């Protein structure tokens, strides 16, 4: 089992220079500590126009800063949006390869397509095409990395023969991942031989069949890259404290803060009915439904890592048994926790929890 950090760069109002800089600087300080403590990866989202929830519009720049401030920790796009109105696939190939050189071969390349009207509407993107454009991007980007010169005539993207530069450091290229939120996307990841970056923060038990089906299906994959990345990473939360009740209380506060920010956005499925967005994305899936019969407060998901070290060892053991290879943690929400508390939580986790899982990683992916 490997452990990483996951950044939305959520930012409190008002959006002053001080507040915005503090979020970025605190996050980088956390990644430097994570590198020293033996965490394996840092992931950064790409989002646009998501007020408070995520001011991470340039993950490549954040990850470049992290890469230069750290030595070993891997740097992951979590994810790069594969929508023509936002990015050409050429630009993704260039940015990821450039970061791979800058980081001495530490890039993980996650892909996705956005699930909010804020973003797709803001860029005037063709909502109905995002699944297909994502698929096309996944197929051409690895070739841009591995072929000296590349040309392509496709449905949503075409280019004459060019040498896409630079080429990545990792041979043959950085591992490929897919953001998995809507049910069924794990199949899309498996079919293409890509890692599943599961972002639906939920119970361990609910993810067991999902991971099992992914494992079975990827055995028959037709990889879009030069190798199969059959890893499963689960986005999660972390707050570790000697007092279990205190840790869980702080965890509830983080979830509530995150929920407030997530609920503010407009999910595609709520605004633009489309066959390729029939399920809520991560943000929408976090919304408790007060219309549910009984109107009872939902218990926290069973797999969240809020607690004292002993309870986290138990929780993570269940994730490990479920087949997860990585847990990647959000450690902050809109700077709700003091930075010192976040850092101390990470130190305690590294000191008393991580040793229980050292040496138990599945060796699966080339380049990972």
């Amino acid at each position, binding site marked *: 089992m490997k452990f990483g950090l996951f950044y939305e760069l959520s930012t*409190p*109002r*008002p959006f002053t220079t*001080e*507040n915005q800089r*503090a979020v970025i600087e605190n996050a980088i300080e956390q990644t430097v500590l994570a590198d020293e403590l033996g965490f394996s990866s840092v992931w950064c989202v790409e989002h646009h*126009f*998501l*007020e*408070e929830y995520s001011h991470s519009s340039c993950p490549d720049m954040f990850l470049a800063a992290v890469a230069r401030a750290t030595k070993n920790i891997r740097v992951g796009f979590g994810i790069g949006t594969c929508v023509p109105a936002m990015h050409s696939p050429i630009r993704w190939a260039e940015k990821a390869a450039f970061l791979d050189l800058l980081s001495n071969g530490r890039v993980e390349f996650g892909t996705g397509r956005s699930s909010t*009207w*804020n973003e797709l*509407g*803001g860029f005037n993107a063709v909502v109905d095409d995002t699944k297909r454009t994502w698929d096309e991007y996944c197929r051409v980007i690895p070739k841009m990395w591995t072929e000296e010169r590349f040309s392509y005539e496709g449905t949503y993207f075409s280019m004459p023969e060019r040498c896409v530069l630079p080429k990545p450091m990792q041979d043959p290229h950085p591992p490929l991942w897919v953001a998995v939120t809507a049910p069924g996307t794990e199949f899309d990841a498996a079919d293409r031989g890509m890692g599943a970056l599961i972002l639906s923060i939920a119970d361990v038990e609910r993810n067991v069949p999902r991971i099992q089906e992914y494992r079975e299906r990827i055995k028959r994959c037709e990889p879009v890259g030069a190798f199969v990345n059959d890893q499963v990473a689960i986005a999660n939360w972390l707050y570790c404290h000697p007092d279990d009740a205190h840790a869980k209380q702080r965890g509830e506060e983080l979830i509530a*803060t995150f*929920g*407030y920010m*997530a*609920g*503010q*956005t*407009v999910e595609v*499925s*709520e*605004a*633009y*009915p*489309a*066959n*390729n*967005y*029939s*399920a809520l994305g991560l943000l929408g899936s*976090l*919304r*408790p*439904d*007060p*219309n549910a019969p009984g*109107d009872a407060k939902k218990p926290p998901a069973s797999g969240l890592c809020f607690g004292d070290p002993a309870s986290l060892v138990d929780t993570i053991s269940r994730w490990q048994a479920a087949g997860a290879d990585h847990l990647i943690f959000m450690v902050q929400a*809109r*700077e*709700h*926790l*003091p*930075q010192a508390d976040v850092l101390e939580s990470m130190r305690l986790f590294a000191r008393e929890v991580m040793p229980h899982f050292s040496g138990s990683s599945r060796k699966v992916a080339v380049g990972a």
Partner: protein
Amino acid sequence: MSGQAELLYGSRAAAEVALAATPFDATANDTVVVADAEILYVLYEMPMARALERLPVSLHPSVPALLGFTFVRAAGGPLGPFTAAWHGIACRTGIKPRHLVQGAFCDSERVSEFLAARYGFACRAAAVTLRETFDRVRGAVTLDGDTLIDLAITDSLPLVGAGALIKYSPPLNATTLGDAPTLVQFEAGYDFKRVLRGRPRLACFDASALGDAGLAPTTPIAGSHAVVDLHLMPARFQVDLVTPAEAGGARKIAR
């Protein structure tokens, strides 16, 4: 920087929120099913500042701010034939999206009374139409010969499989429960039989005639036309007008 965060609330004083004249009746406990009802649902963006001015402190806006239009038509059934329409600003309390109704219309006195007592709608009597033609589905509201709202969806495509449904944000109506002002949530279930999605076309939105010159739809998002069995359930949730959204949220109506 940790501590109390600045949040995005509506700013309208509770006393400035117009309440429906007909008090909400919390005693209704049956479900009325209207078979083969048609629903035209269209979303536009609107300026955030104008949304914030119209939402009470108990509601957050959506980001971006949205203005939603709903037309409902029944050719017959337990309530008789009717066409009703309402428009509202997307909002949330807790984190579920809803629409705070800014205006409602109905061509049936019986249904107006039903909607008022059941859900707090303050429907104005008007000629309300919802028609599907070869190239569009059009909804219109006409009052004393003047068109107030005239919109349509065109270039429609069928939605199929798991996507053949619409996630309607439930309307909230400002009304009174007992003697207290409150927001009552429309409660309905939908069995979808056919769903189309189309491109919104707004031919007329006479904000001044609607009584709020500042209400302004801007960027069209999408519209849908659905044929459903509409289950009109008893209202279950109310929202405070004054408790800040983070401390309030929807709560069950006491019966």
